[in-house]
């Protein structure tokens, strides 16, 4: 009763505060314009040239626009704001570069306290061309209040959850096991997510690319684009086919946070923490189900999710896609475990396709490359279990899983294959990339965590010399020896041991595949298909992500086996050794990588507009790295572009062609097949690829009018989308019904 009252009070207080925020949102926002005129001459190189001082602004999140006369050259000039009077953490601003082909720079200022001492300054590099600025304006947004609303909702959720939790504990409705689960899984999440809790973003190799994707998803949601095929934000709003080849679904949540006004680093770090927790939860759940023991579940979660490769992938490589996909590997494993160990006559057997299809869907929607490797493992697994594969019911379940996977993901798979097969994309032309030299040498597996100075050149891959816990390797050997000695024959429950044995073999295969001794280059040279598959893998040490899971299951099998055999003190000794090894290796590595890898503060993406990693999803031949913004569309000789407007993946220009011949207008959009151009009468104009791979619209002779260019998904894609949406609805209904039946 007391708790219910408390919940009511909390809800009322937070409700009032949310209402206050909503009322504030309804009040129109203000703009603050400053007519500043000034010029920077080529001799003025300075790292701090004041542009405007003593600006007064109330607290808020602002879109800042810095106007200047159009510049044609790349400018070594950087505009930023500063304020020494606002409390620490209350002033967040990244500033912006001045790019050629622009007449304004836009960036975000988050100001959590009113100020009267804000100033704008320019960092002018050596030999900067003359530069004339004309104005500075601050446009207030509703984001500050939406951030408060999201925070208040979060606070409300947490408060209600805590009150309910203690209410249930008092009523004796929460078992000690559940309490232990909450404590241990929370602790593992906090430790595993250290790098997201340092108030910065780990700036790994591909990190900026993923952040640009995130920003693009936010832009697309804002503009009502769904699903995202071309990512509008980068490079310089030219549109990049990231969404076609690299599914963005997992970024919807952080993108919503971005839209609510959270800074880039807050949105990404919250996302990272959630992914870490989801990974730990899925491994724990699966291990608990397989081994029927909570403690073994904890061990599996610690071994798999605090693994060094996980930290490496997140911090050093910035592989966000791989991080998300790792959540789904245990689910896949669980699906196959049930498929090959459960009684085919049992009532639940006909639902085994569900975890398998969910697993594949999750992997596919987060990281296509992980899907490729998962498919490889599936082939190996099915070959290993071939006698069982052809049992009637098993075979049916496999087909059901495949069918469900295809229809659920048809919206992504079809356009992906459509472009991959029919278009000449850079990713199709990277087959020359050989990967064997990126493999590990065996000594990488048997190193102490601290002896960094004794690493040979051959052992250093991506500046990392150790990615796997050698104690786990020893435990794998122990498992193998006990297996050979027949120790596992006496076990009553043999199902978990079957999966542990299989995982032991797969662990060994994973180790071999990750080493330089594996003939990747030979496979690469065999035929064009192998060439594509091998080069797509990029690094053999990707297999360590799978090794982590397989070895975790094997070690858990070892413990579960010993648990069942019972009576041996060394069962505990092994537990202590494993525990120490996790702390020695994983936690040291996690802290070491976060300590050594550079981190950065990034509040918005105004500084990063054109990082494309390998630019794999652009048209082959596009020189993406030289792209700079255009102020206007460019017409051919005799064609006048009188006005130009652009928004994400859409551009409109008023064009006059006074010639008797057809001409063309080039739009600042990277060309992809499905860009279409229309005139005022909705008549379609020819839209082709320019020499520089931009969108080129052919303008008929003696034409005067508006031309609109848009990316329009083909009807076949739309049909696939509809099929997928219907499948998802049916899938959800089916699962809910099955859950109800089970109750």
């Amino acid at each position, binding site marked *: 009763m007391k708790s219910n009252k408390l919940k009511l009070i909390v809800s009322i207080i937070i409700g009032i505060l949310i209402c206050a925020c909503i009322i504030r949102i309804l009040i129109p926002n203000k703009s603050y314009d400053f007519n500043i005129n000034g010029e920077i001459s080529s001799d003025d190189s300075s790292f701090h040239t004041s542009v405007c001082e003593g600006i007064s602004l109330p607290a808020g999140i602002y879109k800042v626009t810095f106007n200047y006369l159009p510049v044609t050259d790349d400018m070594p000039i950087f505009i930023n704001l500063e304020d020494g009077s606002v409390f620490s953490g209350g002033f967040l601003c990244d500033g912006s570069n001045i790019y050629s082909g622009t007449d304004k720079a836009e960036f975000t200022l988050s100001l959590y306290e009113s100020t009267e001492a804000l100033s704008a300054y320019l960092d002018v590099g050596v030999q900067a061309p003359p530069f004339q600025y004309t104005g500075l304006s601050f446009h207030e947004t509703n984001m500050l209040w939406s951030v408060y609303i999201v925070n208040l909702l979060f606070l409300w959720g947490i408060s209600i959850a805590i009150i309910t939790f203690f209410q249930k504990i008092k009523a004796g409705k929460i078992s000690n096991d559940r*309490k*232990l689960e909450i404590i241990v899984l929370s602790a593992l999440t906090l430790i595993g997510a250290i790098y997201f809790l340092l108030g910065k973003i780990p700036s790994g190799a591909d990190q900026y690319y993923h952040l640009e994707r995130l920003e693009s998803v936010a832009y697309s949601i804002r503009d009502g684009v769904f699903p995202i095929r071309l990512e509008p934000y980068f490079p310089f709003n030219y549109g990049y086919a990231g969404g076609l080849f690299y599914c963005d679904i997992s970024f919807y949540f952080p993108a919503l946070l971005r839209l609510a006004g959270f800074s880039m680093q807050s949105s990404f770090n919250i996302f990272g923490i959630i992914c870490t927790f989801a990974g730990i939860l899925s491994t724990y759940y699966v291990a608990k189900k397989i081994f029927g023991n909570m403690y073994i579940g904890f061990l599996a979660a610690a071994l798999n999710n605090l693994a060094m490769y996980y930290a490496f992938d997140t911090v050093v490589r910035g592989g966000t896609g791989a991080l998300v996909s790792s959540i789904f590997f245990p689910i896949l494993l669980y699906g196959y475990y049930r498929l090959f160990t459960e009684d085919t006559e049992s009532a639940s057997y006909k639902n085994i396709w569900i975890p398998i299809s969910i697993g594949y869907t999750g992997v596919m929607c987060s990281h296509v490359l992980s899907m490729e490797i998962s498919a490889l493992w599936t082939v190996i697994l099915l070959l290993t279990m071939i006698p069982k594969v052809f049992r009637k019911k098993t075979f049916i379940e496999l087909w059901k899983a495949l069918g469900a996977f295809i229809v659920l993901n048809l919206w992504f798979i079809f356009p992906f294959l459509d472009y991959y097969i029919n278009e000449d994309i850079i990713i199709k032309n990277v087959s020359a990339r050989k990967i064997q030299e990126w493999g590990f040498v065996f000594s990488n597996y048997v190193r102490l965590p601290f002896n960094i100075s004794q690493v040979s050149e051959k052992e250093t891959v991506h500046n990392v010399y150790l990615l796997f816990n050698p104690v786990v390797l020893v435990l794998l050997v122990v498992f193998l020896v006990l297996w050979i000695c027949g120790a596992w024959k006496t076990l009553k429950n043999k199902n978990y041991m079957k999966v542990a044995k299989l995982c032991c073999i797969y662990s060994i295969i994973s180790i071999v595949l990750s080493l330089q001794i594996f003939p990747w280059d030979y496979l690469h040279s065999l035929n064009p298909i192998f060439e594509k598959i091998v080069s797509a893998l990029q690094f053999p040490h990707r297999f360590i992500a799978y090794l982590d899971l397989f070895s975790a299951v094997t070690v858990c099998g070892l413990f579960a086996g010993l648990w069942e055999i019972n009576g041996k003190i060394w069962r505990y000794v092994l537990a202590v050794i494993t525990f120490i090894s996790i702390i020695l290796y994983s936690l040291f590595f996690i802290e070491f990588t976060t300590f050594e890898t550079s981190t950065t503060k990034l509040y918005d993406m105004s500084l990063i507009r054109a990082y494309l990693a390998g630019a794999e999803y652009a048209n082959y031949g596009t020189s993406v790295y030289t792209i700079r913004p255009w102020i206007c569309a460019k017409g051919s000789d005799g064609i006048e572009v009188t006005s130009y407007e652009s928004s994400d993946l859409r551009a409109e220009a008023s064009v006059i062609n006074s010639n008797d011949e057809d001409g063309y207008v080039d739009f600042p959009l990277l060309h992809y097949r499905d860009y279409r151009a229309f005139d005022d009468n909705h008549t379609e104009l020819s839209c082709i690829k320019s020499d520089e791979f931009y969108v080129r619209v052919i303008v008929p002779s003696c034409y005067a009018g508006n031309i609109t260019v848009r990316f329009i998904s083909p009807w076949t894609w739309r049909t696939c989308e509809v099929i997928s949406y219907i499948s998802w609805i049916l899938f959800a209904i089916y699962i809910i019904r099955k859950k109800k039946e089970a109750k």
Partner: protein
Amino acid sequence: MLPIIFALTIPAAGVALYFVYKDKLLSLFGALLYGLMPYRVYVCFDLKDLGQALFWMVLPIIFLCLAKMYPDEKKKSSLLWSIPALILLCGIAKADCMLLFIFCGILFFLGLLLKRFLYLPLSVVAVLGSVAVNSAFWKFILLGHMNQYAVESELIASKGYSVGHFLMSWLYYEGRPGLGFGLLLALALILWYFLSDYEKPDKCPYEKKERNRNLILVIFSAILGFLSMHLGIWDIAERVHPIFIRLISFINSPSVMFGFGCALLCIPAAKSYGRLWKEKNTFIAKAMPVTLLLLNLTAVIYQICTLRAN
């Protein structure tokens, strides 16, 4: 000198805890937790601040005096023990006046929360005593014209912690050592005991009081941890008056609050370790605290070695 002080603190803490709790095991756990706190490693081997190091060495003895002021639930409070406490507190003002000031603040609020009202006058008298002992410091703080301490007025919030820094055990970012393995597990244990005892209202009143006392210490540690974070509170406080700028500049970093938080946490942590050892009659329950403390020791040795190498 500093390594000796670092080492001497461990027996000092052990003796103090033993005289308070009369429990060898609890004292041993507590002494190791307190002695091997990463924050103390930072103070002795990184910051190399003799004043702070001395303060952390004397703190267990002050704790002993404070605990002896309230010897038992049934016995009356003893004012006699306040004299050595006061002497030590005033003496430590010579080593680090600002730490004393923070400590007296914490003591004042703890006295209120734990209903140990003798702590209130004691903390006030200690602050006044420190003025007498260390008038030069107060002249600097109040008048600001005697910069013999070579302390510059500065904003300290940026030196504060983020959540991730608290979780560090092996390495730490400049001036932000973490909890270390010992205190991390202790926190989980405290939470576990708190949750598992929560539904047992019929516990004897003494145990209930003890639990509440521990809870107050943990909450107070959490508040101190919060204050050690990279927060604008410090900037806002420094704006109130120039005296506050000088006062807070003397703290140098909000991480001092984290040090106090860790020190406070050691008491319920030691009790939790002791309870785990006694209650669970399994090998793993016994092995866990020992392993954790050994790992804590390993991490501390690693930290000391890397700091020395640098």
